Structures are given as structure tokens and as C-alpha cells.
């Protein structure tokens, strides 16, 4: 079953020693040689910024590209709740193994043991690093770091900086990056978007980028390219991702031969502010940390639901005994802190049964009244003040008085570019880190683990492993951007842009993107089935035709043109959407965020099929209009015993 294309490079030896042994065995590049080598990093979120800064410190010549006016705008900034680390500061018997185990289990046994163990191992260094950079983590009165709990864990291991942990960690990495920019070891290209990857002799040697301000198409060469461009959740149009987050860099790599792994694994976050209307552009996440103190419920009686929808009663008027705290009922051991996929499906189950509490029928309550009674308003406000304020600004409802309404929304994509243990893709010299790769979260990511992974990859993994490849490139001169491969790729990029421009159809980009989003949410969303997925594949094909014949992009291509940016990204989202549906159709099991209705237990829990699907599905691009080829990387569990996830007892 093993596939030649997929050499995972997982080192031998006991799990706990793999990373140490691997580090000892891989090649390093001398300081004098590092100065000769160039690395391109796409994206400046936690992964990209930390990698670029660390590589710059090591002496490499780094170029970073981001689509915003500053590296600090990357969407890592929006992560609220926290970052996990196996520090065991709380003396609650946490350990590297426990974090590893929770992550593997939370990912529903679809991630690589070795990668996850390494992640848990370096998680501790991340906290130390961030503290040294001046990240103002929450402290207790004795001056020690404070922790909170997150979903899928029974220990307190989440470090946080109020409700802005992602922001603070990113500012730390961005500061480290700024230090290198000032030193000259990193060169920053802001408002630049990578439009294509350039391969020379099968190796990643550079990119074609568009200067978003001037529309100029630029060539940039390097000895290695690192993709840290984040996830592709915006394929759903409405998601918690930033408006400009996109999967285009990843798709370009895919089209050049990098395999794309587990595209169907997308995480639906249970606590988002529900959709209010057609004109909505964006879904806002309410941090998972709220589930520490908030209790999720819907009314027990359908009559109460009717009254709520008609606004005849307020939620706070429904007495305690008439409320169905369905997570506490179904999962007594974890209660409101079950993993995200479980909480999301449970909300969908209640809403499908007709208990949705707002006009659209797609909302449940997240209630703080018990916590306010127990701890007082002041404590709650200290913990979640900014989130409560944000909620009130958006909805005009005061969450101190009435419960929040929440509903699941697309949040994170576990799938991504396939990488080996060194984080290298199937293209030599092309690396992928953070959310852009597929490696660590399996079928579902635990809360506060995305920040952990981005920084682990950027600070502590890639700077080591990239040396193993670059050690073989020290004799290679600087990449010549006049090479015919650059000519060819640049020509293709220009043709593509011109083509999109010249369609001059009738539909604005957003209208088409919304159509894609509706297909995805309906058929490739929280619950999927064979019929729906086949329908989705057909609809996406139709939509692709529609896009390439009817999209309307105004303005000119030689200037700042946001519609053009969106159109180019949408073309790629259509590809990703198709790949997601294809992968979801192939994976005839329910697992983590991927729920196939055909595969569920009697009480509606996911039913994995370890016998047939304990593998990473990696897809190879076979050309336009061709069905991609599936490669399977078997998941071998040497340490963990595969079991059914149980959050009930």
C-alpha cells in the first residue's frame, strides 16, 4: 500500500527519541554557506514570521511576501483563546505524552504520531521563546504564568494573553522579524502576492509575484521556498477567516506537483456569531475559551423555541428545568468542553431537530448566567470582557444579561500541502508550514493548537530541517531569474490574468464566490453524504464554467485592483472546493471534522473505519479537467492504541 511518492522520512527509534535522533542525523549548513543561500517565505502569520525571523537569525538571506500593507495583519492575529504547551505548571499531571495523546485523539487518529509527538515536545520551548520576546502572557499574583483549559483536554495547559493570544504571539514573531529586517537579513515585500511557483529541474527555485500596488509582475529566485500562507477556509465564502485569506499559493504548488493531503478535513468551529442575512461578508468567532464558563443549551420544549423566534420571550425567562444543556447531557465527562467537531455536530443535531433559537433556526445559546452567579460579573468581565464587548457591538445584545447565540462556522483547515517529517513537500526545496500543511491535526484540530503548530514549525522545526536540504545546495549559485522557467511561468501568469480580465461577464467576483460557498456549505459542510458530494462535484464544475465565462472584473490590471485579486483567488478556491468534495467522497468514514452521514453510530457519533481509511489521502494534480490521482500514506501507530473517541465518561 505504501507509495513511492510519499516518503514520510519518519525517523526510526522510540517515539520520544525520534526528533532528537533526527536532529542529530540531519545535515547542517555552515554560517559562511548560509550567507550564500536565499529562502523565500510566503506569508507572515505565526508560521511564516517565526520561520523567516529564525532563518534570518541563522544567517540565511530571506525574502518574505505578504498581501497586506504590513506583516502584522496576517490572520494569526485573530486567534483569541490561547496556545497549548506541556509545561505542567499547574501540577495537574500534564506531560509531553499527554499533550501528544490528546492531540492524536482529538485529531481522531488521522495524524502522524511522530509529527505530533515532536509538536508536543517543542511546545514547551515556544512558551519560553515568547516570554523572552516580551509576550505579555497572563500571570497570577505571584508572577507565574497562568493557564486555562480548552476543549478536548482534562488539564489546564493553555497559555493566554487575555482574548488576544494570537495577536500577542504574532506581534512577538513580527518583532523578531522586524529585528531581522532592520539587520538586512530579511527583506520584506508587503502588498505582494505569490501567483505561481517556479521549478527548475524539478526543484523549487522561485516565485512569480504580483505587486498589488502597481500590478507589476515580479520574479524572485531562491534556493528554497516556504509556503506559510495559511488555510483555505474561505472556500466557503462565509468563514471565520479574514477576507483576504486564501489558498492560492497552496494550489499553485499543487498544480506544479506538490501533493495535497486530506483536503476534506475542515474544522467547523462551534461558537461563532450566527449568520444574520444575505449581505453578510464574514463570520465572527467567539473564542473557545468561552466554553470554560459558558453553558450551551436550547429549550427542551418546542413551544419555547417558537416564542423565542417570535421574540415573545427572552431566553433568560426560560426556567432552568426547561433548558436542555445538551452537551452536558450527552458528554458528561467533558461537558461543554468537548472537541470542536463534536460540539458543532451536536449544535447541528439540535437545530435540525427544530430547536434552533433564532429566526433562521440556526442558533443555540451560550449562557454565562451560572458563571456570573458563581464568580461574579467582575471576574467574568476580566476573563472575557473584550469578547463580550465585541459580541455586543455586533449583535446589540448584552451577554451579561442574555445568553449569546452561537452557531458553527468554518474555521480552520487541517488538510493542506502534503509534507514529510522535514516539512518538505513532494517538490524538493518546497516547504510548507503552519495551517498550509496537513501534518499535525489529523481529522480535527484541538483548540489552542494552531498557534502551537505555527510557531513550532517556524521557530523550532523548519530552521533545523531546511538545512538538511540546503546543505546539498551550497554549491548552487543564486537562482537566475532570467532562466527560461521564469519566462515560461511569468508568461502563464500574465495570460491567466489577461484571460480573467477579458471575460468581462456579468457577475462580480463575490456573487460567484457566494455561489461556491453555498455549494460547499450545503454538501461539503458539517454533514456529507455520497449523493450530496456527487452533486457538489457537478455543481462546482458548472460554477467553474460560469466563472471562466461570466466573471466581471472592473478596472485595470496595472494598478491596485482588489477585484482582480479576489478573482484570481476565487479561480483557485474553485479548484480547492472540487478537491475537497472529491476527497470527502473518497473517505467513506466519519472522522473528526469529516462526517459522512452513512457512517455514524446509533446515537449520531462519528464512526471511523480504521481498517480501510487509516491513511493520509494525498492528491496529485493530473492536468486541467483530469481527475487527480490519489496516493495513500498509511498511518502507522506504534505507540497509541486506536480507539473510539469517547468524551462521555
Amino acid at each position, binding site marked *: 500500500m505504501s507509495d513511492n511518492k510519499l516518503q514520510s522520512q519518519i525517523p526510526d527509534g522510540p517515539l520520544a527519541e525520534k526528533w532528537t535522533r533526527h536532529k542529530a542525523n540531519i545535515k547542517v549548513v555552515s554560517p559562511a554557506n548560509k550567507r550564500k543561500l536565499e529562502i523565500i517565505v510566503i506569508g507572515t502569520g505565526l508560521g511564516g514570521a*517565526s520561520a523567516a525571523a529564525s532563518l534570518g*537569525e541563522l544567517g540565511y538571506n530571506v525574502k518574505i511576501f505578504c498581501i*497586506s*500593507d*504590513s*506583516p*502584522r*495583519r*496576517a*490572520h494569526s*492575529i*485573530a486567534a483569541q483563546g490561547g496556545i497549548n504547551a506541556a509545561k505542567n505548571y499547574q501540577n495537574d499531571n500534564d506531560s509531553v505524552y499527554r499533550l501528544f495523546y490528546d492531540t492524536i485523539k482529538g485529531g481522531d487518529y488521522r495524524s502522524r504520531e511522530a509529527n505530533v509527538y515532536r509538536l508536543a515536545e517543542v511546545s514547551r*520551548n515556544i512558551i*519560553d*521563546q*515568547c*516570554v*523572552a*520576546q*516580551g509576550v*505579555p*502572557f497572563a*500571570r*497570577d*499574583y505571584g*508572577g*507565574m*504564568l497562568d493557564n486555562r483549559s480548552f476543549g478536548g483536554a482534562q488539564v489546564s495547559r493553555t*497559555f493566554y*494573553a487575555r482574548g*488576544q493570544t494570537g*495577536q*500577542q504571539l504574532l506581534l512577538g514573531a*513580527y*518583532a*523578531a522579524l*522586524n529585528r531581522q529586517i*532592520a539587520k538586512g537579513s530579511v527583506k520584506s515585500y*508587503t*502588498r505582494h502576492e505569490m501567483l505561481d511557483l517556479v521549478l527548475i529541474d524539478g526543484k523549487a527555485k522561485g516565485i512569480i509575484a504580483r505587486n498589488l500596488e502597481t500590478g507589476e509582475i515580479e520574479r524572485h529566485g531562491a534556493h528554497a521556498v516556504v509556503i506559510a500562507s495559511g488555510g483555505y477556509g474561505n472556500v466557503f465564502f462565509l468563514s*471565520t477567516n*479574514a*477576507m483576504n485569506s486564501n489558498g492560492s499559493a497552496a494550489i499553485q504548488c499543487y498544480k506544479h506537483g506538490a501533493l495535497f493531503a486530506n483536503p476534506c478535513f475542515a474544522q467547523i468551529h462551534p461558537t461563532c456569531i450566527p449568520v*444574520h442575512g444575505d*449581505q453578510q*461578508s464574514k463570520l*465572527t468567532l467567539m473564542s473557545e475559551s468561552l466554553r470554560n464558563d459558558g453553558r450551551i443549551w436550547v429549550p427542551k420544549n418546542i413551544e419555547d423555541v417558537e416564542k423565542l423566534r417570535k421574540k415573545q420571550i427572552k431566553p433568560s425567562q426560560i426556567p432552568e428545568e426547561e433548558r436542555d444543556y445538551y452537551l452536558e447531557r450527552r458528554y458528561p465527562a467533558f461537558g461543554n468542553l468537548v472537541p470542536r467537531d463534536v460540539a458543532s455536530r451536536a449544535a447541528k443535531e439540535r437545530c435540525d431537530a427544530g430547536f434552533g433559537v433564532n429566526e433562521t433556526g440556526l442558533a443555540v445559546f451560550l449562557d454565562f448566567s451560572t458563571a456570573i452567579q458563581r464568580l461574579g460579573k467582575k471576574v467574568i468581565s476580566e476573563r472575557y470582557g473584550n469578547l463580550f464587548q*465585541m459580541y455586543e*457591538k*455586533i449583535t*446589540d445584545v448584552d451577554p451579561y444579561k442574555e445568553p449569546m447565540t452561537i452557531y458553527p462556522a468554518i474555521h480552520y483547515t487541517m488538510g493542506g500541502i502534503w509534507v514529510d517529517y522535514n516539512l518538505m513537500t513532494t517538490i524538493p526545496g518546497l516547504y510548507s508550514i503552519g495551517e498550509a500543511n496537513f501534518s499535525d491535526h489529523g481529522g480535527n484540530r484541538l483548540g489552542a493548537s494552531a498557534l502551537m503548530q505555527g510557531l513550532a514549525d517556524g521557530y*523550532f522545526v523548519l530552521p533545523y530541517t531546511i538545512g538538511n536540504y540546503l546543505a546539498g545546495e551550497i554549491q548552487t549559485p543564486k537562482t537566475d531569474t532570467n532562466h527560461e522557467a521564469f519566462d515560461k511561468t511569468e508568461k502563464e501568469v500574465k495570460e491567466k490574468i489577461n484571460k480573467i480580465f477579458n471575460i468581462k461577464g456579468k457577475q*462580480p467576483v*463575490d456573487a460567484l464566490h457566494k455561489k461556491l460557498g453555498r455549494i460547499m456549505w450545503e454538501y461539503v459542510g458539517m454533514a456529507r453524504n455520497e449523493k450530496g458530494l456527487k452533486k457538489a462535484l457537478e455543481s462546482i464544475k458548472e460554477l467553474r464554467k460560469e466563472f471562466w465565462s461570466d466573471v*466581471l472584473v*472592473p*478596472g485595470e490590471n496595472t*494598478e*491596485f485592483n482588489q*477585484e482582480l485579486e479576489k478573482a484570481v483567488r476565487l479561480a483557485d478556491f474553485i479548484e480547492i472546493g472540487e478537491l475537497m468534495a472529491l476527497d470527502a467522497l473518497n473517505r467513506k468514514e466519519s472522522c473528526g471534522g469529516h462526517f459522512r452521514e452513512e457512517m455514524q453510530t446509533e446515537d449520531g457519533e462519528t464512526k471511523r473505519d480504521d481498517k480501510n481509511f487509516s491513511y493520509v489521502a494525498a492528491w496529485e494534480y493530473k492536468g486541467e479537467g483530469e481527475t487527480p490521482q490519489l496516493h495513500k500514506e498509511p498511518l502507522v501507530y506504534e505507540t497509541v492504541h486506536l480507539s473510539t473517541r469517547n468524551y462521555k465518561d
Partner: protein
Amino acid sequence: MNFKLKIWRQKNNKSKGRFENYTIENVSSDTSFLEMLDILNDQLICTGQEPVAFDHDCREGICGMCSLYINGRAHGPDDEVTTCQLHMRKFKDGDTITIEPWRSGAFPVVKDLVVNRYAFDQILQSGGFISVNTGGVPDGNAIPVGKEDADESMDAAACIGCGACVATCKNGSAMLFVSARVSSLAKLPQGKIEAKRRAKAMVAKMDELGFGGCTNTQACEAECPKAISISHIARLNREFLCAKLQD
């Protein structure tokens, strides 16, 4: 709800801009301000006109990308919000809404309402960091940090770098932005070590880039979406003057 919009249009940095008038109808009061602009752009595109360029990204008030000066206020008529968090319920039906880009010599207009805030990056590059390399740092709990200090550091670190302080200051001063970074790091033992160098370097860069000086009008604090206090400016002044007097 219906609105009359008066929006600054400017093709690029070199061309001269002007105001254009638009009307928009049937907007729900629950619509966010940027969604209202999305609707306008949709109309413009469908009628063969160029959409209004404006910066935005996360749309949840944290990336600092959105930057509109609405009816004489940075981020519009609400407190402690970014433009993306502003909702149309804050306006009255039939209002005329004037939308301008941030105005500052240090923030050149890219197009319409889009400006570049590279100047902020440059200030931070001049010293807004702690000089530690990856690896080789002590345990996170090795150096205790008092809760009050950590909290105050976090208060300052909440800055999202949107530039509302500069946009709203009558002097186009970046003191709140600079002080937030200086103060946040100065409050932590890790950041104290190079505090003097940092304050001097960042102020010098700020001056060099053409930002104005602070005259303590407190407008920045009032329009800051994260309500960052001017007490941080006092700390910056203190840090800077002490550092300079020791030179």
C-alpha cells in the same frame, strides 16, 4: 435604511483625488459599515463603474487593516471599535456619510481610501523588539512578572497598528502608537534591558518619518479602537527623557 455617501476617490498616489456622491438604499441596520460598502461596490461593478477601494481583512477588529475616516472621526461614530465593527445602526436613516482616507504625510494614499502604513513598520523595525534569537532562552517562569506589570504591558500591547491615532490627531502624531510598544516592553523585565535604546531609536525614527508631535489633546485615546491610554505616552516621555539625559 437609506444613505447618501460622499466618498474620496483617487486613482493612485500621483493623481489628484476628489469626492464622489453615491446613494445607497435598503440597507439593514444590522449590516456592518464595510458590508454596506460591499453592497455599494456590487452596485458599482454591475453598472460598469469602478468599485471603491478600501482596506479590510479580518473584519473582527483585530488585524488593524480597516482605516476609514467617517464623518470626521477615525473609525466612525462609535467608541472602541474599528471600522469593520461599526454597524449602520449607529447612523440615522437618510444621513449623509462622508468617508475619507487616513490623512497623514506618513501614510501615502494608494488608491481611494487605501493608505500605506509602512511608516509604522519602519518605526518598529528601528527598535520595537527585544533582541533575543530563537532558542537559548530561560524557562517561561524563570523570571516572575508581577500581575499588575503584565496587565499593564498587555493594555499597551493591545495596539492593532491601525493608525487611527495618527489619523485623528490634529498634529498627525504617532506618539500613542510608539508609546504603546515602548510601554508594553518597558513594563516587562525582559524588555527593560534595552528600554533606553528602544525609546531613543523609535522616537528618532518617528520624527524622521514626518509624524507630528504630541500636544496632549487626548484625541488618539478617544478614537483608539483598543482604548489605549495616553498614560503610555507619559511613560514614553519619561523613558525617552531619562535616556537622553544620561547620554
